[in-house]
Structure formats: structure tokens, C-alpha cells
């Protein structure tokens, strides 16, 4: 809400100094977001000028050469805009003027032609963001006048951020009322000026058929006016408040909207058919042309204003093109109404059409101002455009009944705010805000004024106490709570540790938006069940963000690609975050995942042993990550070809017991090609909550061995597809208490190993808790184990 201070001063006597006003408003919840002081360099440098002649620039296609008269005789100006023609009144920045952007106007030659200034656009002057060309003022404006005033640039304007609960401050009078209450100033007589209600009948009848959507409707007829430009004082205030002057009738409706916060609409009465104004909801959908010449579809339930032929306005949102005021209008019907806020909002949101009217209706307007704003508007139209009132006020509906009194308990004030505020003090504040106050014992009973829709409950009034006392006046005090330890849920503890661990692996954390394209979601199904679908976003910002990610991997890969593109050599990355899918009905699944990506030469194998990332690099990272919760021996690795994003022969599901808690492997080569990443890229993704859920509980402490162990090695020739893990599992399944550990220590393929086979070497550690095993004991046991393995698995010992 832009508030020109000159306008505000019309209603408040003795405004406090600017700094103080800003401080007071901000500290009372009406945040001053910006202050625009008049720019002296513009005030003196801008003049109105008439275009005498316009012709093309001889040396530049896009420029034109204008002869203009700025009151001091003709001068030539080069201009890049095309929206003006001879006879137009435009705004000339004379040489030495400095524009808001810092551009200093100089007398110069542009492509060989003399230019004695610049014709300004609204954007260049910071008046609005209208890019369509230079400003063209009404043709009755004289040349040679100071232009800053006409554009509202000679006034100090404060911009207030009005919160949605304070619709009453979306007007100059509303702000004046608030300033008076906050600063203890007096409202001027202009604020309360009473207007006589015209007598007589109106030629128009109002029929409200949807009384739940329109509570009150008033209208007057004004005839015999002449549409033309608004007087400078009005145009200037409108411009300062951020509205572009159009003509004296429309401008008055806007002026009153800003002054009272009451939206008005002027119909060209000669274009209205019949003499009954209907207010009723649309039944069947209908296309309706609004006065901005857009066709909009109104649907069942939208409230409209009707004449005998059809809808003429979308109630509270925008008028129609058919009955719009135009240059030749001489008779108008002026509307002022009170529409139901939510209905206005529903229609305005659906149409994507937020107007100054709908914005105010949504936030609630003052019923007591409906008629006075209407009469003030009629008065101003007659003053600026001539004509006279015809008949009296056409009326239907009435202002809603006064609100019920609310009792505000002083004890409750103390409980909420933490300090005593006396009854009299509270009463005084409520009175200053326009409440009707009555003392009830130690408490206060108060009825809210008609403009404050936000004061309904006791707590609403307590907030007003805090606001007017000033938040600074409440001294901070430590709450008295029993000592207790804050809890860090296991998931968060794991995530913290995981970050530290993965970073110490040399990986960097990335955070990606949770959105994903459909095609990437199809490739990267993540850890969600195969039966689930992706979660679609109905209103994405970008077309490739139409779904919620099923996996963290697309984000990791995108980050990797970005970095490779930037020339960062090796980028091992990890990420923690949610992934999403949906099952039947409204069933949504969210997984707290942790994922990683390894690509490019490994640096951690010492000199001379660098090599590409391999499956086992990623597996190692996963093992060390999971070691936060489970021992390596407790993790299962099951080969799988059922994950589309992974190489079908270099992918494993990560198991805790029978539960798949994650997946690790090399990115599918086809996908790697299409994503533009190296073929050696390995990734993993783990479900943190499953991990926490299935991590075995900590087992009891095992005694530290007292007797020495003996280790024996054996090498088997196995078919290529037999997994080392199968051999290890077979040893473990023997449940031989003297076997402490079995581990693979070598894999060999090549000379001496038959085609289709590989040699796997295992080391088995034997130990007894009872005493030292003799060589004979160990030899006998080892032979038995090897024998069992060869028979059970059909493998042979390699000599």
C-alpha cells in the first residue's frame, strides 16, 4: 500500500516527523517497506512538452527525430519509442536531469543528429513498470509545465506492507485512523465530513438474489458529465499511489477506492439495459468479456451483476466491456457494494484476476463506508466531470448487525503477555482503536468498530494491547521448566554421523530440489516398491519438475554432470533427503534416503595404483557407512538385475536379514551414455529408516581370546557364477565352533584356470576358547572343512 504523505495529511493533523512516523508504524505492525522522497533533480528537470513533428532518424531505423516544444521554444530530441505522434504531450527530461537509474541526460549527438534531452517512459522514471513506450499525457495538458507533479514524483510516499488481517489499512483513511491511534494525533474535519443523502427515488431498482454473497448494494445515477482527463491534483495523487490516471470518471472510482478502501464501479448507464440491477450467482457457465477486453469464463456460483440482457460485472472483481465507461459516456450508474469476501476470492483466484477491488473485498471492507464512499465519489465526479445526481440512492441489503461485545480479562492479558496491564490502560487502547468500551469489574468489555474484522475474540484484543503498549515494553524472561535432555531421534543421529562419515570418504554433500522429470523417475525408481507410482505435482514451475523424485540419484547425477562440465576433476558426491511415491488411494510413501555417487579415477590406492571407480569402491563406502549401525558380517549382498538404472550384472541389493535396505552398483551403460556420464560411475542408495529398523541390536560383549589362532589358506576352482559369498556362507553354516572367521583374499582368472572358471582363495581362522590348538587338530579340522565344501558345492581344490 503506497501512501503519499500529502494525502495522508489531509486526514491527520500534525503528522509526526517522517523518521518517527516510520518507526511508530513499523513497530505497530504496519511495516514501512520503502520510503520515496521526492527527487529534486527530477522535480526541476522534467517538463511537459508537445510534439510538433515526428520523422524517422536519417541514420537509424529504430530511432525517430522529434521536434518538441517545452515552453521555451522548439528543440530536437532523438527518441527510440514509437507510441507518440505529433500533437501529443510527453515528458521531457532536459539536459542535466539525472534519472532514477542514475542516467544523466546530456545534450548530445545521436547517430549524427542533435538531441536536446530525452522523452521519458514510465519505467525510466520509476513510476510504473509499463514498458510499452514513452509517457503520453492527456492532450489538454499545457506544454512547459513541471511534469514531476503530474506524475506524483514531487511527493514523499511511504510503502506499507499490510498483513492480510488488516484490510482496514488498505486505504488512506484507514492508515490515517491507525496513525491517529498510534501517535495520538487528531483526525481532521475532512475525515468526518458528513454528506447529505440525496432525496428522491432512483430510476434503478436493485434485486439481490444471492443475499448470502452480497450483503449490501448501493448505487446512484449521475448524468450530464463529460469524460476527460482528471485534474492535475488527482492525477498526481493517483500516480503517487501507483495507479495510472485514465479519465475523470474512472480516476474518481480509483481515487475513492484508495481513500476509503471501498471499491466502486461506474457503468455507462446508457449501455445498461433495463432499469433493474440484479445481483445473483451465475448458473450455467458463460463467457464474459471484462473491461480489459479479455474473455473470461464465469461458472456456477460466481457472483455477477446483471442488467436485463446479461452479466455486466464480476461482483467485486472487474466490470464488463459491454457497459464500460468510454470517452463519450455522459451518464453513469455508480456502484458501491459489500460482497462476501470468500466468494470474491474464489472467483478472483479461479480467474487468476486479482484486482484492487477483489484484494480489498477479500480482506474485508467497512460496511459503514459503503454509502458515504459512494456519495463522496458522486460529488467528486460532478466536481471534475460535471453533471448532476439523478434521483436518490438505489439500495438493497443492509450493513451486517453490530458485533457482539467481547470481554477481555486483565488476568488473561497478564497470562498471555507476561506482565500486568491495567484495565484502564487496556480501555484507553481499545477506545483509541475505535472500540466501544465498557468496564466490567476488573475486566473490559469491548465492541469492535465496523472496519476491524480481525477483532472477534479476546485474544485478538490482547494482541492489540501488546501492539499499542509496544512489544519492546515486555521484558524477556526465562521460562521455568524442569531440567531435561533434548532428544535427538535415531534417524537424525544417524544422518549426522552419516554426513561426517561420507565426507571423510572424500565425498561432498549436495542438496537438490525434490522435483524430478517423469522420464528420470521412470529410469530411477529408487527404493520404492515396484507397484508404486510417482507423485505428480499439479502446478510445477518447470515442465521437467512435474513429479516428486523417487530417488536421490538423478539429483546426484545432475550435480556430478554440472561439476564435470565446470572442469572439477573427480566429484564423489552424496546426498540425504526424502524420496516419494504413491500407492493405492491417498497412500503416500516418503523414504528418508542416503545416496552416493563415485566416478572417475580413485585417488586412495596409493601411487601407481589409481584406477577407475569400481563396484567395490561403492560397496566399501556403503559398508563403512552402515558400520555406524551394523557390523560388516551382518550385511548381505545379493546380485540383482531388476533395477533399471543399474548395470544388470554389476548391481547388488543390500540386505539386513531378508530385508532389502538399499541398492549399490554401476549405472546402466545405456543410461550413462544418455546422461553424459562416465561408464564407471557407481552409485548407491539406502533407506535410512529401514536400516535403523533392521539393524540387529547390539550383541553382548564377546571375551577377548586368550589362546592363539591358526590360519589356513585354501584355493578353490569355481564356476564363474558361483559367488564367493556362497562359499563363505557354506562355511558359516557348518556352525563349527572352532572356526572363528572365513574371508576371501584373492580372486584369479587367467593362466592355469580353465575357461568359465575362476580361482578363489580363502583364509580360514581356527581358534579354541579352551586352549591352544595343535597343528594336527587344525590340519584335521581344515581337511574336514575343505572336504565338506568340495562335496556340498561341487567345487575342487586348486593345487
Amino acid at each position, binding site marked *: 500500500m503506497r501512501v503519499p504523505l500529502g494525502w495522508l495529511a489531509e486526514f491527520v493533523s500534525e503528522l509526526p516527523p517522517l523518521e518517527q512516523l516510520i518507526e511508530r508504524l513499523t513497530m505497530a505492525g504496519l511495516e514501512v517497506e520503502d520510503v520515496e522522497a521526492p527527487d529534486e533533480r527530477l522535480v526541476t528537470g522534467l517538463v511537459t512538452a508537445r510534439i510538433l513533428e515526428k520523422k524517422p532518424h536519417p541514420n537509424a531505423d529504430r530511432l525517430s527525430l522529434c521536434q518538441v516544444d517545452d515552453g521555451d521554444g522548439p528543440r530536437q530530441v532523438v527518441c527510440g519509442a514509437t507510441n507518440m505522434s505529433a500533437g501529443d504531450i510527453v515528458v521531457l527530461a532536459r539536459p542535466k536531469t539525472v534519472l532514477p537509474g542514475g542516467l544523466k541526460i546530456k545534450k548530445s549527438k545521436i547517430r549524427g543528429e542533435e538531441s536536446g534531452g530525452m522523452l521519458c517512459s514510465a519505467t525510466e522514471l520509476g513510476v510504473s513498470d509499463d514498458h510499452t513506450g514513452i509517457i503520453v499525457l492527456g492532450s489538454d495538458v499545457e506544454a512547459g509545465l513541471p511534469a514531476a507533479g503530474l506524475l506524483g514524483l514531487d511527493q514523499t510516499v511511504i510503502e506499507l506492507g499490510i498483513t492480510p488481517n488488516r484490510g482496514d489499512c488498505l486505504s488512506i483513511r484507514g492508515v490515517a485512523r491507525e496513525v491517529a491511534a498510534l501517535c495520538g494525533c487528531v483526525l481532521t474535519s475532512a475525515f468526518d465530513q458528513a454528506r447529505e443523502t440525496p432525496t428522491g427515488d432512483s430510476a434503478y431498482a436493485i434485486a439481490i438474489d444471492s443475499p448470502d454473497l452480497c450483503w449490501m448494494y448501493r448505487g446512484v445515477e449521475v448524468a450530464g458529465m463529460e469524460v476527460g482527463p482528471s485534474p492535475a491534483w488527482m492525477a498526481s495523487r493517483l500516480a503517487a499511489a501507483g495507479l495510472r490516471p485514465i479519465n475523470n470518471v474512472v480516476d474518481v472510482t480509483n481515487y475513492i477506492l484508495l481513500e476509503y478502501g471501498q471499491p466502486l464501479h461506474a457503468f455507462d448507464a446508457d449501455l445498461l439495459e433495463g432499469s433493474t440491477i440484479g445481483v445473483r450467482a451465475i448458473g450455467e457457465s458463460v463467457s464474459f468479456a471484462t473491461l480489459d477486453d479479455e474473455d473470461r469464463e464465469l461458472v456456477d456460483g460466481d457472483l455477477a451483476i446483471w442488467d436485463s440482457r446479461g452479466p455486466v460485472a464480476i461482483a467485486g472483481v472487474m466490470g464488463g466491456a459491454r457497459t464500460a465507461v468510454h470517452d463519450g459516456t455522459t451518464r453513469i450508474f455508480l456502484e458501491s457494494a459489500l460482497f462476501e469476501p470468500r466468494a470474491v476470492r474464489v472467483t478472483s483466484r479461479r480467474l487468476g484476476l486479482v484486482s484492487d477491488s477483489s484484494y480489498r473485498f477479500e480482506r474485508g471492507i467497512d460496511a459503514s463506508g459503503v454509502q458515504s464512499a459512494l456519495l463522496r465519489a458522486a460529488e467528486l465526479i460532478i466536481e471534475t466531470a460535471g453533471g448532476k445526481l439523478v434521483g436518490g440512492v438505489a439500495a438493497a441489503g443492509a450493513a451486517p448487525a453490530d458485533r457482539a461485545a467481547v470481554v477481555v480479562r486483565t488476568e488473561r492479558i497478564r497470562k498471555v503477555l507476561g506482565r500486568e496491564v491495567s484495565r484502564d490502560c487496556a480501555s484507553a487502547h481499545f477506545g483509541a482503536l475505535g472500540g466501544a468500551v465498557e468496564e466490567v469489574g476488573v475486566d473490559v468489555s469491548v465492541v469492535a468498530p465496523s472496519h476491524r474484522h480481525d477483532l472477534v475474540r479476546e485474544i485478538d484484543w490482547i494482541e492489540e494491547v501488546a501492539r499499542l503498549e509496544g512489544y519492546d515494553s515486555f521484558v524477556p524472561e526465562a521460562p521455568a*521448566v524442569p531440567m531435561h535432555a533434548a532428544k535427538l531421534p535415531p534417524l537424525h543421529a544417524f544422518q549426522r554421523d552419516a554426513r561426517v562419515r561420507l565426507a571423510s570418504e572424500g565425498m561432498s554433500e*549436495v542438496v537438490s530440489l*525434490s522435483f524430478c522429470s517423469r522420464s528420470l523417475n521412470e529410469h530411477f525408481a529408487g527404493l520404492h516398491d515396484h507397484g508404486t507410482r510417482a507423485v505428480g505435482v499439479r502446478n510445477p514451475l518447470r515442465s521437467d519438475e512435474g513429479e516428486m523424485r523417487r530417488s536421490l540419484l538423478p539429483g546426484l547425477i545432475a550435480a556430478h554432470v554440472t561439476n564435470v562440465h565446470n572442469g572439477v576433476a573427480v566429484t564423489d558426491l552424496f546426498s540425504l533427503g526424502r524420496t516419494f511415491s504413491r500407492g493405492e488411494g491417498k497412500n503416500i510413501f516418503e523414504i528418508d534416503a542416503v545416496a552416493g555417487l563415485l566416478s572417475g579415477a580413485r585417488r586412495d590406492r596409493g601411487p601407481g595404483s589409481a584406477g577407475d571407480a569400481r563396484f567395490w569402491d561403492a560397496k566399501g563406502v556403503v559398508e563403512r557407512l552402515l558400520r555406524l549401525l551394523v557390523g560388516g558380517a551382518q550385511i548381505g549382498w545379493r546380485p540383482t538385475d531388476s533395477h533399471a538404472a543399474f548395470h544388470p550384472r554389476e548391481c547388488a541389493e543390500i540386505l539386513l536379514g531378508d530385508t532389502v535396505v538399499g541398492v549399490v552398483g554401476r549405472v546402466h551403460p545405456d543410461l550413462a551414455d544418455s546422461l553424459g556420464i562416465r561408464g564407471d560411475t557407481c552409485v548407491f542408495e539406502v533407506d535410512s529408516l529401514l536400516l535403523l529398523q533392521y539393524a540387529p541390536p547390539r550383541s553382548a560383549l564377546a571375551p577377548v581370546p586368550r589362546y592363539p589362532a591358526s590360519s589356513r589358506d585354501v584355493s578353490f576352482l569355481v564356476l564363474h557364477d558361483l559367488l564367493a559369498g556362497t562359499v563363505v556362507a557354506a562355511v558359516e553354516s557348518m556352525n563349527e565352533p572352532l572356526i572363528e572367521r572365513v574371508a576371501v583374499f584373492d580372486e584369479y582368472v587367467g593362466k592355469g584356470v580353465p575357461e568359465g572358471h575362476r580361482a578363489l582363495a580363502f583364509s580360514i581362522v581356527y581358534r579354541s576358547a579352551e586352549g591352544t590348538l595343535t597343528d594336527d587338530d587344525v590340519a584335521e579340522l581344515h581337511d574336514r572343512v575343505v572336504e565338506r565344501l568340495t562335496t556340498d558345492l561341487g567345487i575342487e581344490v586348486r593345487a
Partner: protein
Amino acid sequence: MADTIQQQLDAIEQDALAQVEQAGDAALLEAVRVRFLGKKGELTAILRGFGALSADERPAAGKRVNATKQRVHDAIARREASVAEAVRAARLSGHQLDVTLPSFGSPAGHIHPLAAMTREICDTLGALGFSIADGPEIEDDYHNFEALNIPPEHPARDMQDTFFIEDGLLLRTHTSPVQIRVMQEVQPPLMIIAPGAVYRIDDDNTHSPMFHQVEGLMVDEGINFAHLKYVLTTFLRETFGPDSPVRFRPSYFPFTEPSAEVDIGCVICGGKGRSETGNCRVCKGTGWLEILGAGMVDPAVFEHVGYDSERYSGFAFGVGVERIAMLKYGISDIRLFFANDQRFLEQF
């Protein structure tokens, strides 16, 4: 006879001493020792030749053998010492190691600044007694809006432009719905914080469609506005320094009343509002920076979760993680957090 033995002894001694000199390491010296002094050694063998000596010749001959043995033994010992010294010297010789060559293994990676910032915020509030709580990122209208006193078609919905998914579900626009979920489960007293990702339709250099919040809630009997001011002032001074100016000014959130916007003194211009080139760009000349929103929990919210608002009161607050990180680290474009450029990340 004795002369012959003497000649033999002299020859063996000469040979032994020569071999001691040649032995370059401990193992060779040991071989020399065994050859000459061992049980089957040459000097032991010579004693066997004593049978040919007369009884009065033997003691003198024995002395001479022992003296020879002693000299060989001493020579070996000296040689051992010098060999050991040479070995030690060799171990310590060689070039100065280039300690500036790069290390083996991976250089440490980096934790994302948003994760680090979230952790710092949660740690500070945790130390004040707030426990972490979680909730879904895909929410229903009830938890995200209605239970927070934002009924359908309320203009306050404009403050949070929402991403919708099918079936009336939406991406949570704040982590406040976690408040509702916790209060539906647990009775006061309550001190919780809810960190996490939130979503709003907004995209420029200070707004990202996904960003992160930490929402806090404290409910008990007798909690009041002065407590809110104390906890948040403490939190902000722990985060921005003990001398940070903090101010509370009225604002509006549907789920709190009274509501406050909390500002800290501008960290860029030191609260002066002006820089060398004019108004401070970061605080727009006000000297203050909006840092979080807060307020006393609105009784309507308590009603939704079945708390008795006459008995219990509380306050809630919401912190923007990106906002604090941007101010603390001097980051001017929020999109840097999500661009994941290693050259940015490695600075944390």
C-alpha cells in the same frame, strides 16, 4: 711340538682377523664366530692336538689358545659394533623426505552448508531443551492450513503460494504442520523443533521453490510472551553473537496471536543502515534484518488438537535456514545452495 701349535695358532688368528674385517654384516660375523669360536670351531679343534704335548707344556699352550680366542672374540665384538653403527647410520642417511608431496587417500569431502546450518540451529535450540520432531513433506490441507487456523479461501493463503498434488494433498509450505501432528499425539509440556524441507511457488535470488525451515514450539502452563522473547533472543544471540541487537515487532500469522516478526541488527552495515555508497542494500537502509517469525500459539490451533487453551499457552517460531546461512556466510543468491557447484561446496 709347542712351536707347531704356535704356528698353527698364528695362522688361524691371522685368518680369523682377516675374515672379521671382511664380514660386512651381522650374519657374516656370526658365521665367522661359529667357524673359529664355535663348539666345532677351528680354535676349539686345536685343543684336540694337545694330546701330543707333554704335561708341563699343556698349561702354557692352553693359555695361548685362550688368549688367541679372546683376541678373535674381541675383534668380532668390535666389528659387530661398527657394523651395527654402519647399519644405523645407513638407516638415518638418505634424502630429506619431501613432506610437501600430496598425501595418499582422498581429500576430505564437504558437508553442505544447509545441513551444517540446520545442525547448528538444532544444536543451539537442543541445548535450550528443544527435541527434534519430524513430519511428512507431502501434507494434507488440514495439517498444513486448516488446523493452523488458515481456513479455505483465507487471504493468508496468499502468503504461501502452494504446490498441489492430486487428491487435495500438497507440498507442505512450512514445517508448522509438524506442530499439529505432535500435539495430536502428545500432551504438554512440549518443547519441539521441526527441521526440514518446505515448498512454495517462488523463484528468484532470495526465494527457492524448495527451502528449509526449523519450526519451534513450546507449550506448557504459564508460557507467555516474555518467555517467547527470552528464548528467541537467546537463540539469536547464540547464533549471531552476544551483542546482536534483537527487536520484536507486531506481524500477522494466522496460527499465532500475538504474532511477531523478529529482526536482528543488520550484519552487513552493523545496524547503521548506510554503507559508503548510500543506503545499505541488504537491510534497505533500515539497519534491521527480518530473521524469523514467531508468536503465541493461537487458541484456535489448540482447539484443533484438543488442548485446553485456558490451561495451556505456548509460543511457536519459524526460522529460515537459507536466510540465516545467507546472512552468516554472506551468500547473495539462494540458488547457489542448490546448484551444487563443488567450487561453492568446498568452501564449507
